[in-house]
Each structure stands twice: as C-alpha cells, then as structure tokens.
C-alpha cells in the first residue's frame, strides 16, 4: 500500500465520519462542525490529486466563508437541540436501506463502467494556477461574468431579506 493510498483512506474515512456525524448529532452547531471537518478532508483529497488551487479555494470559500455564514446563523437564531420527534419506525429502516442502495448502485455502476481508469498525470503537474486562470478567462469567460453577476444579485437579495422591517 503506497503512501498515497494510505493518505486517501485516512482522509476518506475522515470525510465519511464527518458526514455520519452530521447526521447523528443533535445540535446544529455540532453538525456544522462536522461539515467543516468534511470540507477540510475533501480539501486534503484535492491536494492529494494535485488540484492545489481548488483545495485552497475550497478552504477559503467553503470552509472560511460559507460555513462561517452557517455558524453565524445558528448563533443568531439560537438554534437549540433538535426535539426528539421520532422518525416513523415504518419509514426509518426501509429509508436507510433505500439510501444505501442508491449510493451502492451509483458506486457499483461507476466501478464497473470506468474499469480502472488510472490517473493520467502526476500530482501537481496538472494544475498550475496560470493554466486554470487562462481557461477561466478564455473559454469560460461567459460563465465567469455570469457568476459574478449572480453573486451581486445574491448579496443584494440576502441584504434585503435579512433586514428588519421598518416598523
């Protein structure tokens, strides 16, 4: 087992544990912390794959901005522990089975179809920031401008939504 495979398993296990913890925790702040763990583990996986810029952007934007938003909202709304309303026993277990089946089906079909697609390039050689930015500003310039407009709209929308009513 090479070092890379070992690191993959460690980070993958961390991500899965974080996701399971998101489901099992009762207080939303603990779920948010578990999601942050998942995101940092995924950033580690991106680094393992050689996507350095994506890893950095994931931590800065997802982990450092979006999740901070979540944590702020949880603190502002003073969200408490979830009430213990019971999942209907009838739907709980079959639901879990169905979700496992969904994930398993996706995984199995991927595994069967792509065979053993080995990674074609060495880590790090693929993704210097210069190439990504070249692509961003040449082939993808239209989506780039559209997303900047989208963010402007989102900022305005969120500001308007969260204002207190002028009474």
């Amino acid at each position, binding site marked *: 087992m090479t070092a890379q495979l070992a690191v993959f398993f460690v980070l993958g296990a961390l991500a899965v544990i974080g996701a399971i913890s998101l489901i099992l925790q009762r*207080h939303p*702040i*603990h779920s948010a*912390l578990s999601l*942050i763990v998942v995101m*940092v583990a995924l*950033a580690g996986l991106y680094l393992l794959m050689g996507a*350095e*810029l994506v*890893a*950095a952007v994931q*931590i*800065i934007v997802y*982990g*450092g*901005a979006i999740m*901070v938003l979540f*944590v*702020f909202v949880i*603190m*502002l709304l003073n969200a408490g522990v979830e009430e213990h309303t019971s999942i209907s026993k009838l739907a709980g277990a079959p639901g879990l089975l169905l979700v496992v089946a969904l994930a398993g089906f996706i995984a199995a079909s991927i595994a069967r179809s792509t065979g053993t697609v080995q990674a074609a390039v060495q880590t*790090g050689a693929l993704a*210097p*920031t210069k190439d990504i930015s070249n692509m961003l500003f040449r082939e993808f310039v239209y989506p780039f401008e559209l997303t900047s407009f989208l963010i402007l709209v989102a900022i305005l929308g969120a500001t308007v939504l969260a204002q207190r009513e002028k009474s």
Partner: protein
Amino acid sequence: MSAFLSSNVEIVITVVKIALLLFIVLTVDAYLTWFERKVVAHIQSRWGPHRVGPHGLLQPLADGLKFLFKEDPTPAGVDKFVYYLAPLLALALALTSIAIIPFGPEPIRLFGHDIYLGIAPLDLNIGILALFAITALGVYGVALAGWSSNNKYSLFGGLRSSAQMISYELALTMSVVGVLLMAGSFNLRDIINAQAHRPERGIFGWNVWPQILGFFCFFVAAIAETNRAPFDLPEAEQELVGGFHTEYASFKFAMFFIAEYTSMITVSCLCSIMFFGGWLSPFPVSWTFTHYLPSVVLTPFGLWVILDGLRYETIFGRLILPVVGTAIAALGAIFVMFPAVNEFIQGPFWLLSKIFVFLFVYVWMRGTLPRFRYDQLMAFGWKLLLPLSIVNVIVTSFVILKWGAK
C-alpha cells in the same frame, strides 16, 4: 534503527524542524509579551516588569507558571466539546501558519542532505493562498469561543470579533494581489526572488515602493484581522469585560493569548516577505562589507549585556545576564571567523530584523492609538480599505499590462 533513519530521513528532518520551530516560536511568543509590556510601559512613562529577574526578563516564565497552576474552572451550562475545542483550534491554526514561511534562502548541508529553513516544501505553489486559508479558518476559534461560553457578553464579543475578522479578510487578500501580479507566483520564495532581480538596487528594489497602497491596506487589515489595537474593541477590558475569552481561565486563556501573538508574528513575517524583501539585504549586493553587520550588531550587544549583568547583586542578574551576553558575543565572533556561516546567516538575519521591526510597530500602535468604535471599524473596513485595495489591484494590472512586471 539507522536503516529506518536513512530510508525515512526526509520525515525525520521535517519532524526535527517542526519541533525546533515550535519551541522557538513559543519562546518568542513568551518574550514578545515581555517586549510589549516594556515598550507600552515606556511609552506611558513608566517601567514595565522590572522585578522578576534582571530587566523583568523572567516575567514570561512567571506568567507561564501562573497559567499552569491557576484554577481552571469550567462554567456551568457550556457546550463542553465546543468550549474545549475553540482555544485548541485557534492555537493549532496560528501555529500551523508558521510552517509555510521560509526563513532563509540557503540550505544547510548536513549528512549530504539539503535542509532548507522553513517547513513547507520548496515548490509549494500555493504558498500565500495556504496562509489565507488558515486565516480564514481562524474565525472559528473566536466565534465558537464566544458562543460556547454561555454568557451574553462573550457571545456579543465573539460575534463582533468574527464579523470584524471576516470583513477585513477581504481587504487583506485583495491588497496582496498587487504583489502577486508583480511576482507572478503564489510561492513565497518566488515573491522574494522577484524583488531581487536587480540586486544593485538594494532597498529600492523592494515591493513596498510600487505597492505602497497595498502595503498600507495589508498592514491595517492584518492588525484588524489579529484583533490587535487599535482594532481590539471585541476584547477590550473596558467595553465587554473580556470579549470572547471572558469565561476562559488559566490555560485556555493562555492558548488564546499565544494564538494572538503567533498570528502577530506570522503577519510580521508576511509583511517583511511580501513588501520588504524578506531575506534580502537593504544594501546593494556589491557592498560586501555589509556582510559583517550581524557581527557588528551582536558582539557589542553581547558585551553590553555582560557589563549590565555585573551591576546586579541578585544571583539571577549576576548569573543569567553574563551567560546570555557571552553567548551573544560568541555568536557574533563565530560569524566573523567562519565566512561560510556568515554567508548563510545573512538571509535569516535580515528577515528576523525586519520581523522585529514590524513587531515593534505593532506594539507601538497599541501603546499610542485609541481604539476604534465598532461602527467606525466596520465602516473603515468596508468603505475605505476594500475600495482602496481594489483600486490598487486595478492600477497594478494596468501598469503591468503596459510596461511588464518591473
């Protein structure tokens, strides 16, 4: 054992480097508190700590012992996991950011291996972005500390402090883009080397002259980011009792404290690397006689320390100061006697001097400037610093397009 060592020697070297750097950073943190108290005291026309050991030099030791032995109560009703996690997170993130900083250009050749100063590998192509990622995660330490303390004032302090941190993060990252455009890379070593492309210019080749606006934005945003004066409203004593670390007693408070001083050190390193040439000497390269400057500084200082120790009567003064002074003077003498060591030490010497200057400016601002009010603080960040840094980016891009990265 030796077979294990020789096959994994990279890992062993890195582990040793990490341990050494941790030790050094923690010691520097402790003496930074002494330095701050002394400087602020002298600004306020009084002496700082001067009883515990000669010149108060053992004060950090006394503080550390106090932190270790003080009672560490946990308030009722806190969320235990988050309460214990927050200072750990803040400390871990602050210490991790030191790992990315390169301390010198030349490696030490030991047993046939090149040991570069600085833990991160040479080709860490996202050097500065990794630092910003760690800074972005640092907001959690503060926010979670404020929230988990089960205390209104801590919650307010934590929310205000984290809102301040995320607001100034934008200005921080934008103000650096000018430097990155000029250097063409995120790697910190490349940024320093880009400032060295005309070695005879010395101090005039540094990034601060073309990027004076970027430097101003970066430094101010970094002070706000580390919650230091004059932006330290959320943790000010008169306003909110103690802000987000009110409910944290001895050792956990010490962890927040260390995290704050370590991020101060990181920001000083970044300022000196990105804007002031890092390990480059301010003198032109052709002036080789300036290579003796470390010795010229260290040896007389060591002798002064020895002489100063002799006027004390306590055993601490008589014993510690002459020993320390002898060590410093001997270091200066070694640099004169071994030219190879002298060449090697030039880089780290200049970098450490610049870091020291920036730390002094930090402490100076704390002693001198009054505190911002919270709405003034937020208005300053959003309405002044962010537009200024964006203007800096636009102007730098235009200049580079027209004339190439000069």
